[in-house]
């Protein structure tokens, strides 16, 4: 029976304290959420940690769920916000360890060269600004521009503009690589 229940019903039930509904809902969306976190961060371990953050905080966020919104929209908004929080924390951390950070980046770069595990796309994504990456992550997840706009809380035009900017940036990276 539960499999036929819509996400929205489950979320509403969960908001009313139905633990089974909550577990069911999260189980349904976990993989998608993880994939989205990966897109947002570009690093597997980061994605794992971000997903964990979201999972831990999600019960408290249920109160903010409004029935008229789609569950995915709401969940992605929670995810984007969690990613922002994480980046902000990271920025403070980086600032506090600037000197060491250079060394760390150098070490990472060396590592990536040696393993060549980091593929082009993730590297390219990491060179984009946070806003562009968020937007791209959403749009690559089959979200329409209007949905992405709703999740990020900006206008649809902004999303379209960001996408074209992101494309431009990616093309530039590609050309640069080709030139090398």
């Amino acid at each position, binding site marked *: *029976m539960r499999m036929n229940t*819509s996400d*929205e*019903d489950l979320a509403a039930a*969960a908001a009313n*304290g139905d*633990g089974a509904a*909550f*577990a069911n809902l*999260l*189980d349904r969306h*976990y*993989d998608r959420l*993880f*994939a989205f976190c*990966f*897109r947002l961060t570009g690093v*597997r371990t980061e*994605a*794992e940690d971000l*997903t*964990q953050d979201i*999972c*831990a*905080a*999600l*019960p*408290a966020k*249920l109160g903010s769920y409004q029935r008229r919104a789609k569950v995915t929209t709401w969940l992605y908004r929670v995810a984007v916000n969690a990613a922002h929080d994480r980046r902000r924390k990271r920025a403070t951390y980086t600032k506090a360890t600037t000197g060491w950070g250079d060394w760390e980046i150098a070490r990472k770069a060396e590592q990536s060269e040696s393993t060549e595990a980091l*593929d*082009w*796309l*993730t590297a390219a994504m990491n060179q984009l600004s946070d806003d562009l990456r968020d937007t*791209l992550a959403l*749009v*690559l997840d089959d979200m329409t521009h209007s949905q992405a706009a709703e999740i990020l809380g900006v206008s649809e035009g902004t999303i379209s503009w960001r*996408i074209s900017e992101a*494309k431009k940036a*990616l*093309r530039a990276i590609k050309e640069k690589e080709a030139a090398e």
Partner: protein
Amino acid sequence: MTDDLDDLKSMMNMATPRADETRRAENLALARKNFDDLQGSREQPRPTPVTGRNALWTGVTTMLNALTSKAALGTTTALVACGFLFLTPQGQSLLTPPTATDPVLTKLTGASEANDTRASENAELQIAEDVAILDAISPPVPTVESDHSPAPEAFAVEGTAAEEPAAMAAEPALPMPAAPVTALRSVNRSEASQTAPSPADTSRENANLYATAPIETVEEAEIAQPQAQALSTLSVGDRIAPDQSPAATQPNTETYANATLNPLKITSEEPVSTFSIDVDTAAYSLLRSSLSRGQLPPANAVRIEELINYFPYDYPTPDAGDAPFRTTVSSFETPWNANTQLVHIALQGQMPAIEDRPPLNLVFLIDTSGSMGSPDKLPLLKQSFRLMLDQLRPEDEVAIVEYAGSAGQVLAPTAASDRTTILQAIQSLGAGGSTNGQGGLEQAYTVADAMAADDEVSRVILATDGDFNVGINNPDTLKDFIADKRDTGTYLSVLGFGRGNLDDATMQALAQNGNGTAAYIDTLSEAQKVLVDQLSGALFPIAGDVKVQVEFNPAQVAEYRLIGYETRALNREDFNNDIVDAGELGAGHSVTAIYEITPVGSLAQLSDPLRYAPNTVAATSDEIGFVKLRYKAPGEYISQLIETPIIGQSIPGTEAIFAAAIAGFGQLLRDDSHLGDWSYDEAIALANANRGDDNFGYRTEAVQLMRLVQSLSK
């Protein structure tokens, strides 16, 4: 433009790793744990904009805001003045009693002779005099004047403080403990009166307050120390209490009577289907009640036959002298499947001339347990019974038995003409105590037996929220008791009220075994329908133990399925067994049953033919099937038989199609596995197009409910 993105997307999809299973399980467990932790605290009062999460701080702010009143300003100024008097050497010297040898002070005492001789006031007056003397001696200094300008305010308030028995003047060593008390009092006072008293009035007003409200003073003094906490706690408690709705805190203990969905039957294996009729309507009212609260009903609360039978249908009425009801059988294409057919069996009961009806003996058995207190229970019940009272005749008799902790007769059998007495008795009912359903039932039947006379119809009408929480809890045991009583000729109807602990299963068990109907009353208009419009149907049975048996022709029908009636299924052999109980048909009632059949050779056939058994049956008849009905005339023990063949497809009428639409709607609510793509859109369109006359708007309301369900289930 999108090509770039498509490439990117496929690359991204390739790059995205799968979620780690262990991490996944861990994270899910973590989320679940946090969820549960959170639930624990959910019961606590939630902060409102008024109380706020930081009610302590709000309380302090309120206090500080209140302190800025003129009275408080005066008080604080007075405190500073007191401090000056008691703690500084100058102040102490001012306080010392004047000696006769001091010329200045002698002069002062003389001046203040008419006034109160209290020390503090003397002190203030001394200051004033000093200033006056200073003024007289030296040229006027503007700053001195302005420094002393608030003084009169301060003195006025300070004067009241000094009137207290424990005034600072009497105990100069302990001025500080008294100070906060005074401050707090002025806060309370200014809150209470809201009008800031002018400084001149303050002293008198304060004196009055102390004189008239000594208890208040004690309380104030007690909470003086932990004032902020005490205030905030109080306000939180007071404001949260009414916000907590009973529905949010009380667990939902509703139980529903339903059985698993009727399975698809293969005609060659099981050609006969038997069931008892059902004229209850409780499931529909429950559905409406759930939807009006914005919830979809649990699937088990949906009994499709009760949804269908809720509506009055305009079926052909029986001719005079025939059986008490008329059977109409038709078959037509299924709205949700072009390859199957619906067999629609309609029973229309005759409407006896109302003027000729026998006198009624009604015993209202009313649940007055504590749970009946909410407005949609006992108060609605009282209003409903008033409506019903208008339908009774002078020769009818009414008695009222209430049951809570113990059963008691509230109204001895009274002629319906004595409206005042009956209304007073109804009005006197109040909720309280726990429920003892059985004690009440026994007493109600005893009263009914006493009222019974020849050619009269006796009926117990049980009105409850279904909560039989003392005595027989087991529906089966209670059922046996009712079934025994049924044979004495007294029938039982059950009216359900309210939600939250509605015990639908018990209600059904009681009504089905008491030869009565179960109705759920959620609104006054439903009371109008059940107790006024359809009163005669609910109270006067025209046929008892009505059973339906349908035999399908395996040469024509490959598979069949009965829609609804899950709780009314009978064994094949029960049909001819007159001892087996079945549903009653009331005057003017109509009953509809719908089968979905798959004709032989249809594309919609779900089962494959057997390999080792003869899979074709010689066509011996064109008939689809054969309907047999058994019923007993009221008061008789031998059943009579009515037989009707189901002949091929016919053109369905509005009534049959509306019933089909409701059947489809019920299946959408319960289990839509047989409906394919058919959705609420189609159900709504079909029902809307076949509303017929719909004099009282029941079908229009149904269409509205269907639309509501559609929106809720999106």
